[in-house]
């Protein structure tokens, strides 16, 4: 039987203790696990770009999104199975840790900052490497990557913010259910559901967006060279800063939305649904307070 929600909260608090213990005693290891987690997300972004380029919209609207979501599924699976760090998962696990008095608010903030720094570094490094590979410099991928970049950075702050909330609401629900599941097959299905929901649902995830936006930004010179041949309009210029078509514009509001979706709509709600008296009973018989994913 999968764990009850009461047992689930205690298990997640144990995962939180493991993570923040690593952060406290082996911060470099924590950073490296976040670096690996960021790169794993970019594996998914690379595959999503690979399979969805050139899919005609008149075939079935949303079919390219479905393809992207399906191949993106494995990114969270390998992150969770390997026990690496993803900042949005740590936001939701960390808030349970605060409820269970495993960490305090300052430790939570420090963990989120270091996890984001590691994820950012891993994701951007992987995508920089990919842009040097040449495989995605061919026309269909060049054009599609740029179109994704324009869509994501061209949205208004409110649109990005709301889709950021929706993203971690679905993704962190999957991360919690991953811990709830007992056997490997159930865990794979739960971990796969999250990325499928948010990528196919066109939501905004801060680390996934680093990957999705880095490719067109790193390859923009190549795109501008061919843009004049494929369109009569002046091409949209993407940039790293704030403002329309800026990387920082998308990243800022995605992060703010991601905080709310995972913490308020998953972490806090699951915690308040659990029965404090039953949780206390579990604690009375408990000897170990740390589990690795």
């Amino acid at each position: 039987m999968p764990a009850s929600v009461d047992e689930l909260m205690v298990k997640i608090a144990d995962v939180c203790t493991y993570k923040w213990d690593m952060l406290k005693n082996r911060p470099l290891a924590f950073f490296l696990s976040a670096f690996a987690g960021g790169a794993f997300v970019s594996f998914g972004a690379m595959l999503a770009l690979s399979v969805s380029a050139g899919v005609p919209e008149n075939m079935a609207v949303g079919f390219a999104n479905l393809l992207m979501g399906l191949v993106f599924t494995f990114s969270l699976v390998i992150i969770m199975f390997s026990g690496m760090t993803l900042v949005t998962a740590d936001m939701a696990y960390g808030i349970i840790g605060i409820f269970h008095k495993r960490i305090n608010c300052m430790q939570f903030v420090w963990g989120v900052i270091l996890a984001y720094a590691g994820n950012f570094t891993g994701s951007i490094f992987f995508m920089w490497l990919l842009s040097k590979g040449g495989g995605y410099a061919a026309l269909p991928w060049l054009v599609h990557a740029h179109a994704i970049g324009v869509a994501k950075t061209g949205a208004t702050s409110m649109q990005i913010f709301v889709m950021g909330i929706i993203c971690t609401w679905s993704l962190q629900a999957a991360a919690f259910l991953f811990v709830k599941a007992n056997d490997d097959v159930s865990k794979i299905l739960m971990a796969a559901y999250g990325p499928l929901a948010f990528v196919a649902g066109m939501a905004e995830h801060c680390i996934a967006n680093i990957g999705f936006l880095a490719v067109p930004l790193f390859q923009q010179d190549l795109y501008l060279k061919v843009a004049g041949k494929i369109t009569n309009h002046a091409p949209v210029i993407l940039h790293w800063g704030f403002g329309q078509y800026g990387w920082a514009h998308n990243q800022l509001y995605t992060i703010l939305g991601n905080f709310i979706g995972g913490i308020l709509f998953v972490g806090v709600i699951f915690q308040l649904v659990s029965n404090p008296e039953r949780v206390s009973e579990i604690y009375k018989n408990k000897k170990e307070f740390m589990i690795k994913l």
Partner: protein
Amino acid sequence: MDFDYSPWNPIIWAFFGVFVFTVILIISVFHKKYPDYAERCEQEDE
């Protein structure tokens, strides 16, 4: 709107501030209501 592409969209920042305040309030009320909640963890830490 003027703030559609600004890093200082006041509605979003106000919403985020309310979110932070609400979460801190919920945790504080929860810990006051259940002062012994997960108390064995704190003993372990000590």
